């Protein structure tokens, strides 16, 4: 009889492996976006970064780009 106890573990590994592969694929797709789209995303990332870590010092020159 097959070792049934190994099947749930194998399923977990397959699921984790698939998630990992999808993550890699996602990052590669993002890398292939047009540069203009990447810059649009960059501006959103800047807004998030400044929300999470607002300026505290006067010499902090970070700003959200003012581009259309």
């Amino acid at each position, binding site marked *: 009889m097959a070792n049934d106890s190994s099947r749930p573990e194998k399923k977990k590994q397959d699921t984790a492996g698939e998630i990992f592969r999808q993550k*890699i694929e996602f*990052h*590669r797709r*993002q*890398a292939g*976006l047009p*540069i*203009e789209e*990447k*810059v649009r*995303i*960059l501006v959103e*990332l*800047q807004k*998030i*970064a400044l929300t999470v870590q607002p300026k505290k010092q006067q*010499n902090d*020159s*970070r*700003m959200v*780009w*003012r*581009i259309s």
Partner: protein
Amino acid sequence: MEKTIKIINQMRDEQVFVSYAVGGGIAALFYIEPITTFDLDVFVLQPVSTGDIVSLSSIYSWLEKHGYKPEKEQVIIEGVPVQFIPAYNDLVNDAIRDSVQKKYGTTAVSVVSAEYLMAIMLQTYRPKDRDRLMKFIDETTIDNTLLTAILEKHNLTHSFEEFTRKFYGK
């Protein structure tokens, strides 16, 4: 950002600097997924006559004349903080000279190649450089022959071997 690039191209055309190449996080953006960065780094080759002392005064003068005032080490050009960085060593010199032509919108822009960006990141080796190096390896196509030649020329082969051993176990 296209308007910003047009201004930088105009500066090059008017020989405020000999040539330029976009580096740093924005250059990386041409090759890898979007990452957070806040300024546009522009490496510049300046005229030989400026001598050994590196001066950005001619750059700042031109920008002020055209309505762009410096704020600390950067200048806001058409809504984008730009940092002009004179080539500070042979690697950056080569990176500018061997820069690649990309397009942003309909505007041509000189960008440091992926291979030179990797070499520069190996040289500066800050934590964010290590993160970006991994993204370059995982997300983009690298000319390995070119990369090997660059690393050898600038004594970075061992650094790259150490990096891949540490983070990729090979």
